[in-house]
């Protein structure tokens, strides 16, 4: 066994030991508040066990290990269905950005440890009503300068802002230059005067996204991350951090194995469903697709292990796996007939077909819409031209709304 194998076995053993306390069964029937409280206890336990902040440097309270360690742990953790959703954004993007761009290292270490232990939560204030795929089109204003800033505007889609203590924020500090160039990055105190958080409900019933309003919110220049006008590249660095996040060839829906087991007792026109050519085709093709994505992921891990940069094909996972999940989930409901009509709001998407189905469109938006992923593949990997963008090079305040 390699060191990595030993470490992975240790992680597996620890997760197994705490699964009864924190896993899927323990969470069943909890309200979101209760689940969050359980999640905070899990995060604290994980930190004590030494599996928190795997890629974060030791001097900031992390483990200082490789991205590969993180991928391995995240995969095992996802299987156990631990209550980690509330801390996903919090620990993934804001902490590395703070470490990289914030000068007060002692303060950063305090924040990192508190976030890793689930005591504090961070959110990411990026998207706006008029700036989703086109992030650089954002309108939230940051006025002022080195003497201090005032923030006004509205963010949207801010995940778990309702529980957040802090956030990282991108705002427009100069509307007279082209849209990518007038942006500046900050961290903000979500409890500061003038910050209003309004949770709203998603199509699947979840209440995890928020509108966040900034009404003359004062922010010190020491809260600025990166240079004035350099916000877009900080945001891009933030989004790049997601790249090696645990990917799931099932698109975070149920597995093909679960599909097969669901079908085993069912009939189609009086014959076993698993004998029907259409069903067999769906099983075979979706399995082949997901196996391919899995093989891509495993090769990427081998490359990382060998100290090489993994190939760009890792970008395919979300695009292909979530579409597979969407159609497979629709079919799973249809094949169950009357039993497919039942619905339990909030059921775990990896174990429940209706939940998987109704949440799939959200996954096709989160972390880059399909169309943006296709553009990225076409432009960055295949060298195809950017499509027409009439606002290119135009000062922001001269772009028609």
């Amino acid at each position, binding site marked *: 066994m390699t060191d990595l194998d030993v470490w992975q076995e240790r992680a597996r053993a620890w997760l197994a030991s705490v699964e009864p306390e924190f896993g899927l069964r323990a969470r069943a029937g909890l309200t979101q508040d209760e689940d969050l409280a359980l999640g905070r206890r899990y995060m604290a336990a994980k930190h004590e066990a030494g599996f928190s902040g795997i890629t974060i440097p030791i001097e900031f309270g992390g483990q200082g290990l490789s991205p590969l360690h993180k991928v391995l742990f995240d995969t095992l953790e996802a299987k156990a269905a631990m209550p980690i959703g509330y801390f996903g954004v919090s620990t993934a993007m804001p902490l590395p950005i703070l470490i990289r761009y914030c000068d007060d290292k002692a303060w950063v270490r305090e924040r990192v440890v508190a976030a890793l232990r689930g005591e504090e939560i961070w959110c990411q204030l990026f*998207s706006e009503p*008029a700036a*989703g*795929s*086109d992030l650089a*089109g954002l309108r939230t204003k940051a006025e002022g300068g080195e003497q201090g800033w005032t923030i006004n505007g509205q963010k*949207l*889609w801010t995940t778990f802002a309702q529980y957040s203590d802090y956030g990282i924020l991108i705002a427009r500090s100069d509307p007279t230059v082209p849209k990518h160039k007038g942006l500046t990055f900050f961290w903000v105190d979500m409890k500061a005067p003038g910050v209003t958080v309004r949770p*709203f*409900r*998603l*199509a*699947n*019933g979840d209440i995890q*996204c928020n509108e966040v309003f900034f009404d003359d919110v004062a922010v010190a220049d020491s809260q600025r991350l990166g240079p004035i006008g350099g916000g877009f590249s900080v945001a891009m660095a933030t989004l790049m951090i997601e790249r090696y996040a645990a990917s799931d060839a099932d698109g975070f829906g149920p597995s093909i194995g679960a599909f097969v087991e669901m079908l085993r007792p*069912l*009939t*189609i*026109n*009086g*014959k076993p*469903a698993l004998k*029907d050519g*259409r069903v067999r085709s769906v099983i075979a093709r979706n399995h082949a697709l997901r196996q391919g994505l899995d093989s891509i992921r495993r090769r990427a891990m081998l490359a990382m292990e060998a100290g090489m940069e993994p190939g760009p094909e890792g970008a395919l996972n979300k695009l292909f796996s979530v579409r597979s999940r*969407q159609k497979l989930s*629709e079919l799973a*409901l*249809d*094949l*169950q*007939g*009357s*039993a*497919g*009509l*039942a*619905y*339990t709001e909030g059921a775990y998407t990896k174990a429940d077909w*209706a939940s998987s*189905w*109704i949440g799939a*469109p*959200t996954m*096709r*938006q989160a972390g880059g*819409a*399909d*169309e943006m992923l*296709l553009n990225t593949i076409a432009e960055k990997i295949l060298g195809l031209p950017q*499509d*027409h*963008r*009439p*606002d*290119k090079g*135009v000062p922001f305040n001269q*772009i*028609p*709304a």
Partner: protein
Amino acid sequence: MSILYDEGQQAMAEETRRVLAARTDRARQLELLDRCGEWDETFWTTAVDQGWTALAVPEAFGGLGLGLIELGLVAQEAGRVVSGAPFLTYGHGAVCALLASEDEGLQSTWLPRLAKGEVKAAVAFAEESSPMQPHPSVEFRGGKLQGAKSGVAGGLAADIVVVSASAAEGPVLVLVEAGDVLERRAIRSFDNSRLFADMIFDGSPARVLVSGDAADEAALDIQAQMAVLAAHEQAGGAEAAMQAARDYALERRAFGQPIGAFQSIKHRIAELYGLVEIARANCIHAAARQGRGDFLEAAACARLSAIEAYDMATRDAVQIHGGSGVTWDGGLHLHMRRARSLAIELGNALFWEDLLAIELTGVAA
């Protein structure tokens, strides 16, 4: 031959659309999603007031003596606004079952009341994952029913239920007065205003409508007629979702232009237009073939293309709407939910593929 809607039919479609647009309330529809056992009473009283319940009932029983074409027109408009009650389709199923019966007493008791919208009906053919059964497990003996039916749409509110069952002499369709003679187990669903229930019959008294081979034939014809109405609803819903995508693509801007100028968006909406028009053409054709030898084939075509159109239109419309496609209040998920419930009710696509394949090949699966 296919048909062109005549002027009267066109006027009726326009009037239906106008009335439904005025009386539909998205907030109320969203509330219904959270409430099991409730329906949109405004939609239903509108349907009764407008005489939609009487459309396809013969004049002799107080109806208007029209047929599937006119009822289909209404269904299409109801689908467009994701109507909040399933009674029109299943009421028609009950009307068909009564007309297939030779029991004039039952006909004169129920048809006028169905025409007036005084009673709500459900049709209970499905058992577990199977939409229709060659040999239903529900048994009819000595005037009483024993057994269970699954996922009956409208089941939570129905006053009368048409049930397929096995009797000593073969298959039967029977009529049950719901009242308190049956146990209804509510299904909490993703589309609660469909009022899904499992029904347990434990000695419930029932009256025979049709028996023997005629019962099987009637059941298939009733299923096909209801499926044609559902297909109209699906085509209407698909068109509404397609138009929502079109409108959003014109209004929403990104990178300095309306997103509808990006080919990935505009071509997808054009494809949806094609699926909607193909489904609609099949619906109109099927409605016009009611009573002919190729009706089942035409109904299957309508059903299959309508399922495909509604699924694709909701998937793509939600995707084109980006984040606003997945908020609760945006309400596009009403179409997404309805696409799924209508795809399951009355038999899924695989069921209709098999029926159509039998018609086209003469070979059973």
